[in-house]
């Protein structure tokens, strides 16, 4: 295994304006969406647990930019950002958190239950680390379909996002080993935001100063990159994705990032200092990309403002759509448990989102 330096080359700087603007727009959309989500939570329109992605936008946006849109992705419960970056219409995401039938899981799951099969986004999972073996399976399926069923070279890569806390779960280690032994094209992306709830990464895991060491035992290539800079994320990730796809091998990536907000909506954040928070907020990924566009790409304040306005409108419309979507009927408790109707069960009916997408 090798620990590779991140970003040999500034690939992102060679991309066209429209691509970089799209990244900025996606990050702005996630931020605006999350700000409105927090407000709705405070107004008791959203309940349960709600994990906010603000601060980490560059990781989802930069990493997904390095993939093909058909490459499967999966994550844990801090999932709104990944769903939106993958292209889920914010209205389905918002409606889910409001517990409305129009939500991507029919309003029966909530914040941790973002699924978007049409966009190859496989969730949204509440048990820390338990998504890691699923990602190995998603990669395995792509490889098998290509090599065994289609009789051609493997073409897919699966990407699995996990938190630094998930590194301590057995499921993560079993998945890494399995991916290594079976040569599965899966990339484990650790979003190291410094904390697992109130436990700092150094208190929670060994080799916290060099998380790439975790991959060494499995013979898996590992890279550490700056997750607060979307261009750096892309620069680091793109060669890894290409290599995994070509060589049909797993990889491990640490993206160093920070969650600006609490772990969930009820977290007084006593385990860290205001100073530390401000230090990270000062390296804001959105401002960084906007700064690059302004200095290098003739992007003006007015362009920024119009993007910001566009996402505000989009999120407002998502909210209006949500308000019009009714809560699920009580009978929904017995829907989607089994495929067939039997006993008390009503069989399965797809979420509206999938019916909409099928029509498109």
């Amino acid at each position: 295994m090798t620990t590779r330096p991140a970003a040999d080359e500034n690939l992102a700087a060679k991309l066209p304006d429209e691509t970089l603007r799209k990244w900025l727009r996606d990050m702005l959309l996630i931020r605006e969406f999350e700000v409105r989500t927090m407000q709705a939570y405070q107004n008791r329109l959203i309940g349960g647990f709600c994990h906010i992605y603000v601060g980490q936008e560059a990781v989802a946006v930069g990493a997904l930019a390095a993939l093909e849109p058909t490459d499967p992705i999966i994550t844990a419960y801090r999932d709104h950002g990944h769903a939106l970056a993958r292209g889920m219409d914010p209205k389905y995401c918002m409606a889910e958190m409001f517990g409305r039938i129009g939500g991507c899981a029919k309003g029966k799951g909530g914040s941790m239950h973002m699924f978007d099969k049409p966009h190859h986004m496989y969730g949204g999972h509440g048990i820390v680390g338990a998504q890691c073996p699923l990602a190995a399976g998603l990669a395995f399926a792509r490889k098998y379909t290509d090599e065994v069923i289609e009789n051609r070279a493997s073409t897919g890569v699966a990407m699995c996002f996990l938190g630094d806390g998930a590194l301590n779960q057995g499921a993560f280690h079993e998945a890494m080993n399995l991916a290594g032994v079976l040569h599965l094209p899966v990339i484990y992306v650790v979003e190291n935001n410094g904390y697992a709830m109130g436990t700092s990464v150094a208190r929670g895991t060994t080799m916290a100063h060099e998380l790439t060491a975790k991959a060494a035992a499995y013979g898996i290539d590992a890279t550490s990159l700056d997750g607060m800079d979307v261009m750096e994320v892309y620069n680091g990730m793109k060669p890894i994705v290409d290599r995994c796809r070509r060589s049909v091998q797993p990889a491990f990536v640490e993206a160093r990032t920070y969650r600006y907000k609490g772990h969930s909506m009820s977290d007084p954040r006593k385990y860290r200092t205001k100073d530390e928070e401000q230090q990270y907020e000062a390296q804001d990924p959105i401002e960084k990309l906007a700064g690059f566009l302004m200095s290098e790409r003739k992007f003006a304040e007015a362009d920024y403002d119009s993007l910001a306005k566009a996402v505000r409108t989009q999120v407002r419309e998502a909210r209006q759509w949500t308000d019009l979507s009714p809560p699920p009927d009580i009978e929904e408790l017995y829907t989607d448990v089994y495929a067939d109707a039997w006993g008390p069960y009503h069989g399965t009916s797809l979420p509206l989102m999938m019916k909409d997408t099928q029509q498109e």
Partner: protein
Amino acid sequence: MANLTLVQAINLALIQEMERDDRIILLGEDIGRNGGVFRVTEGLYKRFGAERVVDTPLAESGIVGTSIGLAMAGLRPVPEIQFEGFLAPAFDQICTHAARMRSRTRGALTVPLTLRVPVGGGIHAPELHSDSPEAFFAHQPGIKVVMPASPYDAKGLLISAIRDPDPVIFFEPKRLYRAFREEVPEDEYTIPLGKARVVTEGDELTIISWGAPVVQCMNAIESSGKSIELIDLRTIDPLDTQTIVNSARKTGRVVIVHEAPKNCGLGAEIASRIMEHCFLYLEAPIQRVTGFDTTMPYYKMELEYLPEAERIGKAIEEVAAY
């Protein structure tokens, strides 16, 4: 005496037991410096130090497995799992080691650990944070399962669990953590495991329940105006068959109430024991008021899912009128 919530009663029991017995070690995620997600272990880290209140990595299988090792070596670990849904990664250790070590070694090795686990719904949490998996563990021989429904019982039962020579899963109903206060003696006392509590005496009908629904049952009984005997099991395994049988023979009418899904829930076991012992005394078919045989829904529907007083009241009417 102090007027305590269930959280405070557990906190007090832990402090008193730790002061009495330095073999007791607490382990869990964020239980030390942060006092735990539900703040049950608040202040214990300061009081007993990092050696005895151990903040662990995010690793349930590791937490429980390590605790089993500690217990096999003669210590008294009291690990915490943050929510019942996270028992899943630890299920292996609980069922393959904790529950079987005594019988596997014919008594040479034992596992006196108490696994504290917040359980159940009613706090606006999603699935895996609102479930009631007590029947999974009752089904596994070798492990005891306890669930208090009041601050007083919580303290006495927890002390008994910690002192018990066998592994105990101590389920703490989240919905009751801060729901009400009760007089709880400062002095130590124990409540024996395996003994149910008769909450209200009555002769028209028996309700059997445990955990958070006990409170819903009390509300339903009050509005029914009937003479109803309410039994709070307190310990789910071993089950206090005698208390159940005595009451069922007296009233001849039984309603069982639990949060977990109905299919293969504990209600089925209880109903079956009543059939074995009280067949000729019964005046009506036993009814079960339970969660549904589905995954716990988003919080906006959770009160439909949980056995609330209204549904219990309906069952009371039907069984009483049969």
